């Protein structure tokens, strides 16, 4: 079955600390991987995406993620978090099988709280 798991449900960090959020997926076939951020009361915004090529992808706001195919992982990282990074982070996957649908399968989300 297709699924995405995020290991950390709640993370609390101090400003300037480094961040790594884990994401593992189970999906038959070639995948596209995404990280979305949802600030309080707002909609989902795309942080970064991986389709193919360099497994280390850089996104907005200093975030990056590394696709490790052998581990079925796509962990999100940021070297130094800010208070404004307080939000919920969702890992998501869809397939590159050329099918009729590209529905996203989301992980359960990680709530990040950054303390000033």
């Amino acid at each position: 079955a297709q699924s995405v798991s995020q290991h950390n449900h709640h993370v609390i960090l101090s400003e300037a600390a480094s961040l790594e959020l884990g994401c593992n997926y189970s999906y038959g076939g070639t995948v596209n991987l995404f990280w979305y951020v949802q600030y309080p009361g707002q909609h989902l915004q795309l942080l970064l995406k991986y389709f193919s090529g360099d497994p280390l992808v850089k996104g907005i706001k200093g975030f990056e993620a590394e696709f490790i195919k052998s581990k079925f992982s796509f962990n999100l990282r940021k070297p130094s978090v800010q208070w404004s990074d307080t939000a919920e982070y969702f890992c998501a996957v869809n397939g590159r099988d050329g099918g009729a649908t590209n529905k996203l399968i989301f992980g359960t989300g990680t709530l990040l709280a950054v303390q000033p």
Partner: protein
Amino acid sequence: AAGVIQSPRHLIKEKRETATLKCYPIPRHDTVYWYQQGPGQDPQFLISFYEKMQSDKGSIPDRFSAQQFSDYHSELNMSSLELGDSALYFCASSIRQGSSSYEQYFGPGTRLTVT
């Protein structure tokens, strides 16, 4: 840049009532997706449309129906509302063009509260 528009942004309904949610995709986008996000949960795929035809169906109750119109906007119709339908309903759009097909842009959502 133009974004996905959803209306209304907030909706309060009573049990057994009906509701209609609207989604206007980004101009030139031909594919629309609907997701439901319950309190404290991840978004769950409901249904999608490509060129006005249903392209995939997820965990959408039979009480719900949706369609995509000739101008590509979509409407999600919900009948016999239940308390458990209270959620944030997101619409996303994409354009079926190479790798862009895989990337979805989300609207601000409609927060439905059923009392």
